[in-house]
């Protein structure tokens, strides 16, 4: 199983109910093939940066799913067939997330093993004149 982020833009001519129905339909497709929908992120209607099929805005929906290649192929086929989907993009994110976690762990280890900086360090941090030593 791999984690994917499947984003699509639906035409603004759709009603909210129709959009919900379409999202639900996609969910059943995913679950019917043993995939798992982790998150459904509906951004609502947003204006596009440029016109797509003469539309100036569209509904943005991002599905985070755990699935395999064939499920993505099927989803993309459905997006192509559906007239009201004007743009879609699927990105595999599990490897990036894994790397991100690893980096975080490495940083954590580094910051744990680093000793607490001694007070003398502060003089170096100070730009320009070092603070005058207190008069004895």
């Amino acid at each position, binding site marked *: 199983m791999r984690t994917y982020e499947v984003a699509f*833009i639906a035409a603004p001519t759709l009603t909210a109910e129709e959009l919900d129905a379409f999202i639900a339909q996609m969910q059943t497709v995913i679950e019917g093939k043993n995939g798992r929908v982790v998150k459904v992120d509906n951004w609502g209607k947003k204006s*596009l*940066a*440029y016109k797509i099929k003469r539309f100036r805005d569209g509904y943005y929906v991002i599905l985070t799913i755990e699935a395999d290649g064939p499920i993505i192929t099927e989803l993309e086929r459905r997006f192509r067939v559906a007239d009201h989907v004007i743009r879609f*993009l699927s990105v595999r994110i599990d490897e990036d*997330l894994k790397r*991100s976690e690893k980096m975080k762990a490495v940083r954590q280890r580094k910051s744990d093993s680093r000793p607490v900086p001694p007070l003398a360090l502060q003089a170096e941090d100070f730009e320009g004149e070092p603070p005058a030593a207190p008069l004895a």
Partner: protein
Amino acid sequence: MAAPKRFSVKRKRVCKFCAEKISYIDFKDGKMLSHFIPERGKILPRRISGVCSVHQRQLSEAIKRARHMAILPFVAD
């Protein structure tokens, strides 16, 4: 004759993403990405933004994805 003394301000180049410890640049975050596209909508080169090579690669990929999803423009006027 000695050349006039040039005052070059040496600024420390710090990659924004390294400083903020971001290890995955998300294409959905249009607001953050828009800092790296000048008016024309091009991708800001590394020599100007100071982003490290690892993050510049991720950044350009994210910007291209964002363009595809009409989050960012291909050309802005």
